[in-house]
């Protein structure tokens, strides 16, 4: 694979997310070179999704989406973008799958209820194809599956109780194939393009326990939040549109892993908390199991179990998070609790 950029430098670029400066623009030439030299192509499928992940991909700034579509990724199947329809499209997809050497991107959860009938995505030889079957069939042949968005990574909204269609995350449905989870509702375009770049140029990136690339999902929103000073000083917004930490209005920043607070969205113009909104924890496996606009008290950590925020701190193994639990328990007056955490699953330079 032709590349002059070391993996170490690449990961550093990805993780060092200065606001409004996207790293992937720098990578575009390397990716174009790789694609020209026969790098794997990409099949992109949509299941129980809202297309938001695709729309977010179109918002990529560096590299420009024009470049991404025409040079950087060999996108062989995408339901929203491709010219072909019907049989022509389905045949193309199976052709690419037969050729092998491709990555499968999945957007949306996999409905498994009613034998998969809650989502059919096409037809072959007069028979409908359920999304569940398609993900299994195509997934097995892929080099790796990239689950883009919280629905495909963890089940997301469609899998929320009562989970009417028995939706599952992709890695619950397809075994024996590496799966990379890039959650977010939707994921930042840099997380998606960056992950594609990593697999094309270097293979599977280093992942955390939830299968997320560490280069994007190691930090906690709260640690780098522009409203952090309000929190440390015990100033909390009571209604929307006010200055102050958003915790009382329902912010889930203290338990949310991603770099949105430093990377910012949409070309760096804004992000969730900057706009006076709350973080809703959309990159977490439990999303959206909590009320969006109520102060977090207990957190579900798995089926039928929940813990207090103090316990979450222990679960996450971070002093700062435990400190937040302390704040929530009413110890705001004590000010900053515990040393600032420096070692939140720091990306290894390997």
């Amino acid at each position, binding site marked *: 694979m032709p590349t002059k950029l070391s993996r170490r430098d690449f990961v550093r670029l990805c993780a060092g997310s200065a606001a409004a400066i996207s790293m992937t623009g720098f990578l575009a030439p390397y990716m174009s070179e790789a694609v020209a030299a026969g790098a794997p192509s990409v099949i992109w499928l949509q299941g129980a999704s809202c297309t938001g992940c695709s729309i977010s991909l179109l918002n990529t700034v560096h590299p420009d989406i024009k470049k991404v579509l*025409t040079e950087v990724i060999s996108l062989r199947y995408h339901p*929203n973008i491709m010219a*072909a329809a019907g049989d022509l499209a389905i045949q193309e997809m199976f052709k690419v799958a037969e050729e092998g050497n491709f990555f499968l991107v999945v957007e949306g959860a996999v409905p498994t209820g009613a034998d998969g009938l809650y989502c059919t995505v096409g037809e072959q030889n007069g028979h409908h194809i359920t999304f569940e079957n398609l993900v299994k069939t195509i997934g097995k042949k892929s080099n790796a599956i990239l689950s883009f968005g919280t629905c495909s990574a963890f089940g997301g*909204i469609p899998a929320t109780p009562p989970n009417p269609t028995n939706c599952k995350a992709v890695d619950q449905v397809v075994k024996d194939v590496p799966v990379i989870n890039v959650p977010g509702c939707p994921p930042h375009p840099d997380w998606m393009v960056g992950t594609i770049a990593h697999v094309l140029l270097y293979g599977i990136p280093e992942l955390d326990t939830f299968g997320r690339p560490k280069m994007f999902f190691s930090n906690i929103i709260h640690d780098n939040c522009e409203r952090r000073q309000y929190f440390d000083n015990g100033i909390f917004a009571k209604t*929307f*549109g006010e200055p102050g930490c958003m915790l009382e209005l329902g912010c889930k920043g203290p338990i949310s892993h991603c770099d949105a607070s430093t990377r910012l969205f949409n070309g760096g113009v804004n992000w969730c908390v900057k706009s006076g909104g709350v973080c*809703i924890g959309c990159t977490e496996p439990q999303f959206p199991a909590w009320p969006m606009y109520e102060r977090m008290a207990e957190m579900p950590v798995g089926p039928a179990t929940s813990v207090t925020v103090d316990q979450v701190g222990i679960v996450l193994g971070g002093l700062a998070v435990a400190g937040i639990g302390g704040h929530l328990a009413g110890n705001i007056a004590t000010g900053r609790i515990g040393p600032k955490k420096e070692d939140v699953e720091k990306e290894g330079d390997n």
Partner: protein
Amino acid sequence: MAKVVVDPVTRIEGHLKIEVEIEGGVVQDAWTSGTLWRGYERIMQGRDPRDAVQIMQRICGVCPTSHCTSGTLTIDDICGIEPPPNGRIIRNLILGSNFIQSHVLHFFHLAALDYVDVTRVKSINVNIPPFQPRYEAPYNLPDDINEFAAACYLDALVARRKAQEALAIWGGKMPHVQSIVPGGVSEVPDAQKIFEFISRIDELIAFIENKYIPVVMAVAQYFPDDFNLGIGCKNMMAYGGFPLEEGPDHVKKNKFIPSGIYLRGQDLAFDPAQLAEQVKYSWYNDDTHGQTPDKAVIEPNPTKKDAYSWLKAPRYNGSPMEVGPLARMWVMKQKDVRGLGDKAFSVVGRHFARAIECKLVAHELKKWALELQPGQPVCVPHKIPTGSEKVGMGLCEAPRGALGHWQQISSSGRTAVYNAIVPTTVNASPRDERGVQGPMEQALIGATVKDVNNPVELVKIVRSFDPCFGCAIHVMTPDQKTISQFAIN
């Protein structure tokens, strides 16, 4: 009787399938079926009603702003509150910016490849996947215009991204906005944001006027047959959008796009009480049949006999209605669109109305941004009432048509019933209890298909509605299979 299958239909949002029967090259009958069900309304049951702001906007990543607006309006309605002027204006800026991104995305990235011939483009390399393979059909644009349109396709990628940046200035991020909240918005206006917003809108206006509208006009000129394609039911419905004043009655207050009905050739006032949903041919139990939207409770039944769609059949006073930019511009009596007369009810008419609306909204956005008053409040406090059941209605306009959410809360202040009637449900609805086809089905009937192996006319009709669901079209192949076998077995 020839049957053709196109499955899936790509370049739309979501999952839909359509079947048609063709005789003598003309479509005799058609069936449209939504093929994805997620049960969002069920997921809302028992939750904090305010979660609708976040959960329900995730119905759709192309127009989350509209679902967010409608969902929030149900809560405003339940709480009996209304945003202050800044809140009203910023909600309009968010919704309007998304009209621009969605319309540009739709025409260039979803529809234009039916008109632009990528194989003849010389200046840029688009004769590759995902632009190939494609249906072979007449691509009539002359070389120079074809070249220009292809360049516009790529420019449009940048334009729609800029529209989302403009939106995110007020919305926090896009897709899925964070700043729309019960009682108003959370983003606070200042001069810097207003200027940043207007500078982007100026660029977008230049794109719309110099590229979007000219390419639509070229399509109209070189594909004159498409004025006779996809006629449909000719009944138009708009709930109205972009309120221009404060006032308690959300339906009647003055809005930039007014509410209205055009039924069997007559202009009428819109009355939400005339809406009802029918489920005879939908995969839901029949006990929800004919319910008004605030009462509908959904029990899925994916093996129901004779049913062929996850979409219900919303009807207004018993009639199928078309919604979308054409309906809005028609009801608004916009002179260019009404000036087309009956030709407006066509594939090209819909593209034209969408482009005109895009231009009108863009110009208004600049004006509205300058009406913002930095320093004044953006929202009012809210409290979910308890002690009795309440119902809230949230009507607005999505890029693809009239959108309504209804939410009923229990006496303990939790969501009891949630129902959303989305524009594509109205447009792509299946038959109703009288067997009358939905608007898109009617638009397909009568279409001339020149080559059943390249049925580009059918996908053009479907795409002209800008449908929003993962979609699969069945135009049945000549193997005499029954519709029901295709539908579910």
